[in-house]
């Protein structure tokens, strides 16, 4: 019963998307092409000329692409779990409308998480396709990157969504973006190995969820994955997701039953 109610909420988001999907083509399809082209190929020529021993001897494109995949999953999660959620409760009040039906706050939350999972799967699959076009994959384990990227996205989506429910001003999201998402994007090993960071900052990078996602995707794509390390990354990301779901159940209930 509970499950089917969450699926109804999922179908609400799907119907919504059917009418506005054209607007997302740019971010879903063109962005991977542009970034892999400019950074992977363009900047890659300079990096490869200078020597890639610090990257483990692979081309910069092969190094960068799985990192960007994880970072793109983070961005998708951020986009889906901030304004759409906040808008539903603050501007459009569709959540208030839904709550007067048999749907409960947790159904709304799980329905939206399902929807985010759907979007993450879609965007990551497109990204992997673009990677294949650019010849950025080094191993058949690349297919494992799909669940890895989705899990990375969920490790952001669940906690951020829980937080979005507690926000009363949308400037909070601008702050989260500036001081959370952008520093992670720039310093969590997407563009260069974390080992280049100063020693005292490095532990900070290892704690960030994006670093775990990047490391997991990169080891799969380069075919260097080890069971122990991968299990550690998956466990960390899954724990963060679970924590987010626990918190989200509470914040949804508190906001909507208030």
């Amino acid at each position, binding site marked *: 019963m509970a499950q089917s109610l969450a699926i109804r909420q999922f179908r609400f988001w799907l119907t919504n998307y059917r009418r*506005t999907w*054209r*607007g997302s*083509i*740019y*971010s879903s399809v*063109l*962005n991977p092409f*542009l*970034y892999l*082209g*400019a*950074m992977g190929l*363009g*900047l890659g*020529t*300079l*990096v490869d000329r*200078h020597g*890639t021993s*610090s*990257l483990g001897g692979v081309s*910069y494109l092969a190094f960068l692409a799985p990192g960007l995949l994880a970072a793109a999953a983070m961005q998708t999660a*951020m*986009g889906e779990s*901030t*304004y759409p959620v906040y808008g539903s409760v603050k501007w459009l009040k569709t959540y208030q409308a839904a709550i007067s039906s048999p749907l409960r706050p947790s159904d709304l939350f799980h329905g939206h998480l399902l929807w985010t999972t759907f979007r993450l799967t879609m965007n990551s699959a497109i990204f992997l396709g673009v990677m294949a076009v650019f010849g950025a994959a080094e191993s058949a384990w690349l297919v494992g990157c799909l669940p890895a990227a989705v899990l990375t996205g969920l490790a952001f989506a669940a906690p951020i969504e829980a937080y979005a429910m507690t926000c009363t*001003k*949308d*400037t909070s*999201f*601008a*702050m*989260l*973006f*500036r*001081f959370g998402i*952008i*520093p992670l994007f*720039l*310093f969590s090993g997407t*563009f*260069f190995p974390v080992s*280049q*960071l*100063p020693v005292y900052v490095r532990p900070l990078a290892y704690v960030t969820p994006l670093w775990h996602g990047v490391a997991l995707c990169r080891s799969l794509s380069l075919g260097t994955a080890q069971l122990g390390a991968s299990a550690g990354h998956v466990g960390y990301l899954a724990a963060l997701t679970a924590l987010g779901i626990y918190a989200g159940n509470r914040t949804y209930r508190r906001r909507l039953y208030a």
Partner: protein
Amino acid sequence: MPERLSAATATAAAGPTAGAGTPPARLGGLPLRIIPVALLRTRAPRAPGAPGAPRQPTARRTPRPPGLGGRGSAHLIERHARVYRHTWSVLISGFFEPLFYLLSIGIGLSKLVGTVVGPGGQPVGFTSFVAPALLATSAMNGAVMDSTFNVFFRMKYAKLYDAALATPMRADEIALGEVGWALIRGGIYSVAFMVIMLVMGLVHSVWAVLAVPTALLIGFAFAGAGLAATTYMKSWQHFEFVLLATVPMFLFSTTFYPLSVYPRPVQVIVECTPLYQGVVLLRGLSLGNLRPSLLWSVGYLAVMGVLGLAIGGRRISKLLLK
């Protein structure tokens, strides 16, 4: 992206309460008026009986000659400044973005890339090569966001211009006011960016003192073009086109690597983009590589801004004064 939305919605939230019509508010004894009243007065007050003093009703009826902007622009800028008092934290946090980018490139990418061939053929450190291009990009992005998303919101949802046009304010004054506001914000960020560049030792020439005015010129060009483009937009979906123009320019206008990486036909396309002109200008100034051809870039950007402003002003009056 969220920052852009938040700026728009913040305007919505703060709009009615922070309107210029409220009596001058005071905070701890300080007047909150940002632009002195004397500067805002359109004509000097004259004694009613004095010769030559226009009678109020007649003055009202004769339409003011159309031009490019005017004192009304200052009113609009003051309105925006008042609104942004409520979201100053977002404004200030904008300083950190260039800092993060430059640090990330300085610590990470520059070690991977080493040196790049600069505009004069001399080897240049990668961070010094990228920094002026990032300044140009941030000038473009700031101006485009202000003149597209925010203007669209004010025009369609906040109905700010409908209200403004019901006063003696003209459409061209609105256009110039919007561009002026975009330039004020852009100027603040450019100064901050230059300070960060100086502290990080990325400035290699005294000509860099001209970098802030140049960044303002880039902002002017893109704000004008953005304003003109916004008047043709019908829904938020059309803003995908804005990203479709700015993101490829950011990535491919020699921001991260020299033009020589491309084959010749691609080079020609890149050379035609306005951001490339801005990048070339700022890179020349900060690396001390000045040559006469830079004047072409100045002309390109100036013409783009003036054209955009003229078209934007005319279109706003056409859209709103039917």
